[in-house]
């Protein structure tokens, strides 16, 4: 009896390995929560005949998934680290795809008085000085890495302050927590625009336009020399699609429900 079961189990497993023309893309919660993939992928899948399975995690986790060989291609946003990992031989064929920017969101009544400030580090130092609640992703994502780099320009470590909440959640969840707590948060504009669509969160963009807040998204393929099973050819088709004129045009045409553009294409620029 047990042996029969075991055989059935094994057969079932191997049946699952036979799918062809499927690539796996590890990406960030911001691209999924904003709805970009749902919009973009059908065009690619129809054109190339390759299905893209998206696993949406933070950028840090996406790096790990790629480095372990559990994905074929990555779409992430932490350019400095991406370039470092390409140099170290984990990934190949990295390209800029699109950008938007990070913004500092806060309650409409703005208790720390950030409205009108143009510099992200100054805004952060005011939050620190006034001890107003600040929500941090705390999950090693691209947004979290950016936030930490801003604290670093102030030469300070915000953790363990009473007003500093590390929530360890995706972008949309973290914004919701910030909204409930009447807190400030660093967020990517794409996710903010997408979730502000459907919900009145009582928050608004208070600080924007600082150069440090630039948010570059890049695509890269897991190095097939490190992981022989990587579907390089199909992954390459996906990369070529994203940086092609058509792919870039689609990125530019993606809008939220209010008709606002969420991502700006900049491949090859």
């Amino acid at each position, binding site marked *: *009896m047990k042996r029969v079961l075991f055989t059935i189990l094994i057969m079932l497993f191997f049946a*699952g390995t036979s799918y062809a023309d499927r690539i796996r893309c590890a990406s960030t919660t911001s691209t999924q929560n904003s709805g970009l993939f749902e919009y973009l992928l059908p065009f690619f899948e129809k054109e190339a005949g390759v299905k893209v399975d998206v696993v949406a995690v933070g950028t840090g986790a996406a790096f790990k998934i790629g480095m372990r060989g559990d994905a074929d291609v990555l779409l992430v946003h932490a350019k400095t680290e991406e370039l470092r990992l390409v140099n170290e031989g984990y990934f190949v064929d990295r390209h800029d795809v699109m950008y938007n920017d990070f913004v500092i969101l806060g309650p409409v009544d703005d208790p720390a008085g950030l409205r009108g400030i143009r510099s992200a580090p100054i805004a952060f130092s005011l939050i620190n000085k006034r001890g107003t609640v600040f929500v941090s992703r705390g999950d090693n994502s691209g947004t979290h890495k950016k936030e930490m780099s801003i604290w670093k320009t102030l030469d300070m470590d915000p953790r363990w302050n009473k007003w500093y909440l590390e929530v360890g959640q995706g972008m949309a969840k973290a914004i919701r927590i910030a909204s409930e707590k009447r807190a400030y948060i660093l967020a990517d504009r794409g996710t903010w625009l997408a979730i502000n669509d459907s919900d009145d969160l009582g928050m608004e963009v208070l600080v924007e336009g600082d150069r440090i807040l630039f948010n570059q998204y890049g695509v890269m393929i897991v190095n097939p020399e490190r992981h022989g099973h990587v579907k390089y050819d199909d992954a390459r088709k996906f990369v070529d699609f994203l940086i092609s004129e058509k792919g870039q045009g689609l990125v530019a045409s993606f809008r939220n429900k209010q008709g606002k553009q969420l991502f700006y294409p900049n491949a090859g620029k």
Partner: protein
Amino acid sequence: MERLFYSIKEAFRLIITLDSEMLGIVSLSLGVSIAAICFASLAGIVLAYALAFRKVPLKAFVVSTMNTFMGLPPVVVGLVLYLLLSRSGPMGFMKLLYTPYAMVIAQVLLALPIITAMSHASLVAVRPAIKYAAKGLGASDAQASIAVVRYARYGIISSVMAGLGRVMAEVGAVLIVGGNIAGYTRVMTTTIALEYDKGNFELAIALGIILLLIALILNSALYMYQRKVYR
């Protein structure tokens, strides 16, 4: 408040019109969980029977392990399976990570201790007289075993239902090993978590209602069966 009413109204519209995205998610959910419960039940009931009536090495250890693992945190199961199934892990060659098969394995691991421990408890409670009586009436060993299992069937079915409840409601393990891939490994619970993130509460509420309905139907069926057995 207005938004809440709107979401609930939309949720019912999705259910009544049998929205195709929703149906896909529900059927994947049911498929994965039922497959997992079939494997876990067969293995669990055989194991429980062996533990109750046969000589099994380290019996006390196995029984207490099963009892402890009834409360196994799903994320721990997810994490361990992830490390095993990853391409860089010992079972990476099977290419199972981020497939529905990985989700089935995770759910089998979660349901097996519940089914084994609860079935074991109800089998142990069957009086030895039943077996002797069956044998005295000329039953073979196998037939006597079946008589004992039949006698404990209500408890065994309850254990299977408890296992099914656990795996259908579970989110931590399937999120880690399935990856919540749209149309492929996205089940009811992981969709609810994601739709909450996106602020689209309609589909989340609809799936929540369906999950509750399924639980209600299963438990009513069990109750009817129980009444029939004890009448």
